């Protein structure tokens, strides 16, 4: 065995921070070894044998989007058939349903719709907030787009959304934070630096956010590691990321096509995320893309969070992948893996039963 490899093993054994070249070499380790190291980091950062999840629902307020990302099967271009903006009665009914399920908040995301003014967004946020639910809303591409539309600075826009009731930002739209990849898969969407700028502006105002990575399309494994490093670097500055959520590209119905990555690649990527992101507290499984079985196994590969109940999921479902889980099923999956389920909110605060 080479000296370099021993050094990597030694660093993993003591939990030392990995440099880029070391992180790239993690791909050479076998699945079980990666899982074992990742599990140690998981218990160092989250020593309790519990797995958290949030009772929420997805609300996609519009599918009209100018971005036309090649991996997306959800959007409709402005003027195209099938485009919608959710009407208030439907929204209201969705909120009531969530409250009946004991939900704490809404994951609110939509397309980059050029016809919606700032007042719409502010009204949407305060409407949900006033119904007694937290708003985990607007991924960085939406915020960046709205800042451009309104001419407001990111900081001012985020402040106004916070004043309207926004309580945290989901980490969507990150895809791969490498512009070579973004130019090919989502050329009309904000670039990687801009995505990070939005998150930095949010963190600096005390707004917590998550971060995601959609992998398994045109990126290399080294570019996945680059993505992780950009998140880790910003987290060193701001400390505002709560959780990281990697998930696999789903090709059904998209322009980009191709095959989805398998479960072993998913688990390896998950474990490597845990090992690189030593400063992000939580790691979330993606049962929506992996299904309940792999999601359960993922709890042994560094993850400590089972995501959310969702109630509805439209974006991944548009690719033809349609896993659904009830709250009771989530709890059973967690218990079978040997952990105690624990409800949290979107800011990862634990909630009483």
């Amino acid at each position: 065995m080479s000296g370099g490899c021993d050094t990597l093993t030694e660093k993993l054994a003591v939990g030392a921070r990995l440099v880029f070249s070391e992180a790239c070499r993690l791909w050479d380790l076998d699945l079980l070894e990666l899982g074992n190291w990742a599990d140690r980091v998981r218990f160092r950062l989250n020593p309790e044998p519990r797995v958290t999840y949030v009772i929420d629902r997805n609300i996609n307020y519009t599918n009209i989007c100018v971005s036309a990302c090649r991996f997306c099967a959800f959007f409709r271009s402005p003027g195209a058939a099938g485009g919608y903006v959710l009407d208030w009665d439907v929204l209201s009914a969705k909120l009531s349903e969530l409250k009946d399920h004991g939900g704490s908040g809404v994951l609110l995301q939509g397309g980059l719709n050029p016809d919606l003014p700032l007042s719409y967004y502010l009204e949407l946020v305060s409407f949900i907030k006033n119904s007694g639910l937290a708003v985990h809303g607007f991924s960085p591409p939406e915020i960046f787009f709205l800042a451009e539309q309104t001419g407001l600075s990111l900081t001012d826009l985020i402040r106004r959304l916070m004043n309207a009731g926004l309580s945290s930002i989901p980490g969507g739209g990150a895809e791969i934070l490498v512009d070579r990849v973004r130019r090919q898969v989502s050329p009309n969407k904000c670039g990687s630096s801009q995505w990070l700028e939005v998150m930095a502006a949010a963190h600096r105002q005390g707004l917590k956010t998550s971060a995601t990575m959609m992998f398994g399309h045109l990126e290399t494994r080294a570019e996945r590691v680059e993505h992780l490093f950009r998140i880790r670097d910003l987290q060193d500055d701001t400390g505002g990321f709560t959780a990281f959520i990697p998930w696999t590209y789903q090709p059904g119905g998209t322009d980009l096509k191709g095959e989805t990555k398998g479960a072993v690649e998913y688990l390896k990527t998950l474990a490597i995320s845990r090992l690189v992101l030593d400063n992000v507290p939580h790691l979330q499984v993606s049962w929506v893309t992996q299904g309940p079985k792999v999601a359960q196994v993922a709890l042994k590969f560094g993850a400590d969070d089972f995501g959310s109940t969702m109630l509805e999921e439209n974006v991944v479902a548009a690719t033809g992948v349609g896993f659904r889980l009830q709250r009771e099923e989530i709890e059973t999956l967690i218990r079978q893996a040997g952990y105690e389920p624990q409800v949290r909110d979107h800011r990862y605060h634990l909630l009483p039963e």
Partner: protein
Amino acid sequence: MNMPGIQDPALQPIYEKVAAKQRLSREDGYTLFGSFDLLGVGRLAQMVRERLHGNKAYYIYNQHINYSNICVNGCKFCAFGRKAGEAGAYEMSLPEIFIKVEERAHEPITEIHIVGGCHPDLPFTYYLDMLKGIKARRPEVHLQAFTAVEVAHLAQKAEMSVADTLSALKDAGLGSLPGGGAEVFSPRVRSSLCPEKLSPEGWVEVAQAAHRLDLNTNATMLYGHMESVAERVDHLVRLREAQDETGGFLAFIPLAFHPANTGLSELTGPSAIDDLKTLAISRLMLDNFPHIKAFWVMLGPKLSQISLCFGVDDVDGTVMEERITHMAGAQTPQGLTRTQLQAMIREAGCEPVERDTLYRVIAA
């Protein structure tokens, strides 16, 4: 010396036994099932798997034919079986079976896998003519047909000994027996779930009679319903003892119970963690079985891929038109292409090897 990658100290003595190639005891089996350390158990199974097969993972280009679901047994865990005349009951005529074979005559199929119910009325000649007719159409294809349960049923119907029944089937073209119908050997479980079915002793007797006639067989265990850990371990130990005597088992295939549409639909079926542990522990306990197979139709392609890192060396085959598990609600596809199987194996870090039924390598 401590084995890296094992967190549970209770696994340490088992690690030492595995490293020394010693046989594991029943108590070791209980310890393995009781361990929280899924990855540690997997690591031990990988030691055995790598010793036997390196990083090779086998698959087969096969066709499944489920000739009839009419069955006298009425096992509670089954969604496939129907009584004669019941809604959904079917039996394929010989010409229908031959059409299924002819439809795929252009494909490089090396095995046809034939399983059905214990039919009350079909004559023994139906089975013999089925084998002969398929062989006449595809002489090069290996016929893996009729579980021990079906064979015992045929022997009884034909009023012949098990050995004579198997000889007649062999003369008609039978190449080997699939491993189904073993369920769990525990009398407690069987009296509750499948009281009419062939006994464990009868199942082992058929398998061993086949071995003595130079017919290989597989073995299975249906798990995740009402059996205990001790009953699983006992099942594995009984198979290991039978293999010591006759040596004809090729592969062991743990079958995850699928509850939908069965008499046990209130159950949830085994968890993914249980699936992986059971596969890994099978690899560790069955030291005299060459192969451990993950049947992807039951586990799903994703979990089957992961299982290649937990002691499994075989993912079965292309299949197409599997009915038994799909009638129990399996959401898996009807078939996988060779390319999909190869990609799935490669992504797990293994080398895909196409095999025939007897695990002879098919040249690419």
